[in-house]
């Protein structure tokens, strides 16, 4: 056993095994690289990319200005200034809504915190800009992202329950779907 | 042609030798010594001692001077500001010796300079390296062994001197 180890050291056995491995990869060359700008990966649906604000199908904003996303955010990305809907004292909406995307770490906690499903994570990730200030997004920009990323909004049916769908006032004219 | 080469090499050797002594920054001194070693090697080549020229560059420039640079950088000494106060005495002594030798060299005693070696002489014909090897391993075998012993002693001595905690460990 001693002699065997010694001979292995002399002929660089371990190194030769390693070199064999690298040479095999050279001869059976199957690259796993994607030529990124020319070809792109197909992303999973649950990909956590750029954040966006969503609308209902009739165009009204989903956001009710409850500030829960701001509270949930660990990096203090979100800033909400909520206000009453003029003329309807029971309803509120986000008068201003800012996201500082330079600090966002795409954890998705705000999306989970939102009671009305007003936030969504898109599959956009190509957000390189020359000026950091371009990543400080306001409500219009976030809504535009949402419109771009979710042209057809599938309603989550469980939210149609009257107890849950208290805020979904804009959909009252639609008949509830049965499961 | 040979005279021209000699003047060039000798001029650079003298200039760099003066710079070694005169420059304040030890690194610059070591670098002028490097240039001098190269020109001395060139001088050896004109004297048909190619083997020595190569050894000169390998040993002096490649090993010894790198060690000097190593120590200079290791100690990171600030540049020395003044020469030694015995500067005038040194300069005077140097001048005296130089004038003496120049006088002796130009006096041309009756023996004179030796005759020029004939072209295609022994050292060129056999090949410089072979000749040196022959002499080194036959006539001067004993000095050669002594030299190797000196190197061994120097190696041990250097380790003992430079090792910080040789006897504590």
């Amino acid at each position, binding site marked *: 056993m001693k002699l065997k180890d010694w001979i292995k050291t002399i002929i660089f056995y371990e190194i030769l095994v390693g070199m064999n491995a690298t040479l095999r990869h050279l001869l059976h060359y199957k690259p796993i690289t994607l030529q990124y700008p020319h070809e792109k990966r197909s992303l999973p649906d649950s990909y956590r990319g750029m954040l966006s604000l969503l609308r209902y199908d009739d165009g009204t904003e989903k956001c009710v200005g409850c500030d829960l996303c701001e509270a949930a955010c660990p990096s203090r990305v979100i800033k909400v200034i909520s206000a009453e809907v003029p003329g309807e004292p029971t309803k509120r909406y986000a008068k201003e809504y800012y996201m500082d995307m330079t600090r966002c770490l795409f954890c998705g906690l705000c999306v989970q915190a939102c009671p009305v499903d007003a936030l969504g994570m898109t599959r956009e990730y190509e957000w390189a800009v020359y000026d950091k200030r371009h990543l400080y997004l306001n409500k219009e920009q976030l809504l535009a992202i949402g419109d771009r990323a979710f042209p057809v909004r599938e309603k989550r049916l469980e939210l149609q329950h009257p107890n849950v769908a208290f805020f979904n006032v804009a959909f009252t004219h639609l008949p509830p779907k049965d499961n | 042609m*040979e*005279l021209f080469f000699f003047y060039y090499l*000798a001029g650079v050797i003298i200039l760099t*030798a*003066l710079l*070694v*002594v005169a420059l304040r920054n030890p690194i610059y*001194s070591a670098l002028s*010594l490097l240039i*001098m*070693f190269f020109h*001395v090697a060139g*001088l050896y080549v004109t*004297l*048909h*001692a190619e083997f*020595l020229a190569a050894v000169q560059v390998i*040993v*002096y420039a490649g090993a*010894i001077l790198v*060690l*000097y640079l190593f*120590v*200079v950088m290791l*100690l990171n*000494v600030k540049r*020395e500001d003044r020469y*030694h106060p*015995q500067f005038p005495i*040194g*300069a005077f*002594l*140097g001048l005296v*010796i*130089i004038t003496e*030798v*120049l006088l002796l*060299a*130009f006096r041309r005693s009756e023996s004179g*300079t*030796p005759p020029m*070696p004939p072209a295609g002489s022994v*050292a060129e014909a056999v090949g410089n390296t072979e000749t*040196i090897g022959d*002499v*080194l391993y036959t006539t*001067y075998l004993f000095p*050669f062994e002594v*030299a190797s012993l*000196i*190197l061994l002693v*120097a*190696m041990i*001595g*250097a*380790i*003992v*001197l*430079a090792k*910080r905690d040789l006897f504590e460990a």
Partner: protein
Amino acid sequence: MVPLSYYVILSVIVFVTGVVGVLIRRNIIIILLSVELMLNATNINFVAYSYYFQNITGQVFVFFALTVAAAEVAVGLAIIIALYRSKSSINVDEFQLLKW
């Protein structure tokens, strides 16, 4: 052809430069470099005489001089490092414990 005396003069000038360097410099590293200068001066002489007298012995002795120079450098630099450790200086004026 270059007369032999030219080589002698060159070697003497370099040698004296080395001597003056040892005398006037206070940085111990440069003093060692000056010693190298002197060794090289003798080597030039050896090689020149070896060529003009067609005797290879001169070159053999240059070879030995190289060996001795290498040994000298190794020990000398070790001494310098040891001195620097104890005195934090390489100025020869500060090493005067044996001075009366």
